[in-house]
């Protein structure tokens, strides 16, 4: 049985979990192609025009997969962290309903709720629904999920302390790449959601551009989970979105740490949670006088535009450092 997983959104954060889960159930996992102009165009066609680019891309990736698979994996992801007040962006929660409303000819969607805050009984009910769809026993689904969770936590342990976004991506998505890093006089924290940072198409190769300029890049994924949790205390109240919390806490960690020369916030045009995240980072950076820039991406983002802004920012940092 072939299960399709779109190569965007949670793919860049939880692939080991999803993959481990379906492989333990004896299914074959098919991932959509890398983001391209064609995928983006399809996404723009099927998503409502007020949606942000990641959501449009998601529609494109679903379109890319729908002819090739028996089931499409579009979970209603509510909570994976056990933090009580935390969930995901409403657009994530409504993904299955969105694609169902606009795209004809879809294979059956695996849209079960994943909410680790819920009691075992309620989780079991969702597993049961999933099991009948896939034609396996509910107990098997349960066991497969637990096994996948263990795999995911091992992956997360592997992640902390890794010094290079390419490596992080490699571990998360089993996408092996080797990049030779030049000497790095400047260190930058690049914070943003994994599906923006690690998708070369949507960010116009932002990270590799920085590497070429001789910049050492640090991302929120490289901060150990414990440190992130500690940093949560410096906010008046936790944000409601898992990825946003990771970004804000990561950013605050890098700003407080004093290790980085500047901070880049990568965001999608019109991203709701990021309007809050961006301001929080901006205020924190202002207080600690750490240079800060926000780069927002949309379907019209061009290489030249991103490059100009990065170059200006990095040049400014170099001047600043030389002056000191």
């Amino acid at each position: 049985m072939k299960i399709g997983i779109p190569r965007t959104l949670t793919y860049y954060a939880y692939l080991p979990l999803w993959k481990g889960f379906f492989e333990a159930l004896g299914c074959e996992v098919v991932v959509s192609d890398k983001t391209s102009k064609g995928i983006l165009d399809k996404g723009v066609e099927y998503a409502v025009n007020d949606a942000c680019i990641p959501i449009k891309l998601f529609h494109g990736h679903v379109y890319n997969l729908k002819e090739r698979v028996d089931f499409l994996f579009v979970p209603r992801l509510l909570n994976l962290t056990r933090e009580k007040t935390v969930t995901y962006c409403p657009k994530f929660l409504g993904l299955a309903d969105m694609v169902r409303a606009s795209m004809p000819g879809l294979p059956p969607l695996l849209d079960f709720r994943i909410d680790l805050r819920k009691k075992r009984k309620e989780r079991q009910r969702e597993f049961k629904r999933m099991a009948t769809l896939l034609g396996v026993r509910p107990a098997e689904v349960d066991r497969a999920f637990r096994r996948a969770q263990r795999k995911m936590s091992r992956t997360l342990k592997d992640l902390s302390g890794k010094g290079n976004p390419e490596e992080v991506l490699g571990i998360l998505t089993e996408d092996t790449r080797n990049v030779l890093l030049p000497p790095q006089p400047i260190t930058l924290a690049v914070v943003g959601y994994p599906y923006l940072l690690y998708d070369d198409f949507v960010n116009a190769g932002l990270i590799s551009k920085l590497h070429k300029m001789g910049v050492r890049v640090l991302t929120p994924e490289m901060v150990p989970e414990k440190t992130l949790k500690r940093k949560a205390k410096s906010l008046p109240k936790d944000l409601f979105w898992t990825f946003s919390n990771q970004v804000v806490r990561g950013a605050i960690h890098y700003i407080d740490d004093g290790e980085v020369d500047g901070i880049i916030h990568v965001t999608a045009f019109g991203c709701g949670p990021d309007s809050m995240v961006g301001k929080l980072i901006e205020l924190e950076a202002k207080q600690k006088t750490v240079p800060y820039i926000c780069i927002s991406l949309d379907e019209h983002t061009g290489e030249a535009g991103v490059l100009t802004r990065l170059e200006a920012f990095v040049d400014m940092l170099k001047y600043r450092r030389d002056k000191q």
Partner: protein
Amino acid sequence: MKITFPHMGGVYIPLKTLFEELQIEVIVPPFNNDEMKGTGCKYAPEYSCLPFKLILGNVLHSLEQGADTVIMLGGSGPCRFGYFGHLLDLIAKDLDYRFTFICLEPSTLPRDIGRFKKAAGCSTRSFISALRLGWAKLEAVDTLEQRYWSCLPYAHDGSRLKCMLRQGVEQITTSRNLSGIKNIAGECLDSLEDLSPRSYSLPRVIIVGDIYTLNEPYSNQDIEELLAGRSIETCRSIYTSTWVKSILLPWKRKTYYKRAKAYARGYLEDCIGGFALDTVYHAISSADKGFDGIVHIFPVTCMPEIVSSQILQKVSGKKRIPIMSLTIDEHMEKTGIETRVEAFAELLHSKKTRVK
């Protein structure tokens, strides 16, 4: 203590009453206008929604007038509203305003109210009676408005009707006893009916969207008035008082969500935060009730409403009901919205006569 709070439609009436009854000095910001929007947009994050920008504008204006306490409702997400207060607090403090911020979080409501009562130095009894008076006013004003919008397109003299409503609201606002409010509202409702005899039927639309945009006429560009001007009867899906009643009381909340989910089945399977489920539910139930059209209005970058706007396309196709989707931001001009309302109204009228 000089307390202030942001606007949302008629919410200032009960809040002003509450604080005045408790003998707390209260600063009510002026009704939303271009100046509020300007201040809000200057300091708010670019991608935040218009409601946040207006709320920030309100609060900054009041702080400038000398308010020293800001009170706001919190929330538990995943709509951004629950974080508005805290972000507003950070932004205003960054601008060097000094004030106390009281956030009423649903999870710690009794404790937060206790803190407020202590700061205000009032007894539980006077607090409750003030709250009851305020609540009665909000309910009465909302009922009046509801009737006003359904009567307006039928009225021979719209300006007289408007005068009646304004008078009624003013009397209710200044009234100090419960039975007085009831009488004023009853009289006003009757005279609204008398001024607008219904000998024929006009197309009827339901207006759905998020609570702030629906209830704040400045942010929805007076959509109801525009539609009424084109002889369309409108019905607002969410009034503040009806929403508070159906959501804040736990026993009502359960049945409300059960009904909403039953209606939305096949379109939106779960509550995803904000007002997405309410929007889909009201759209579908109104289509079933025989409404002639749906107007969906929401601020740019509103996450839950973006999801529901995509789903409403499907509702429109399946239920064969016309829908107009309007996204509002600070750059919206009245002319743009007028053109769209005009076209939509013509479509509804021609459809109605054709059916006849």
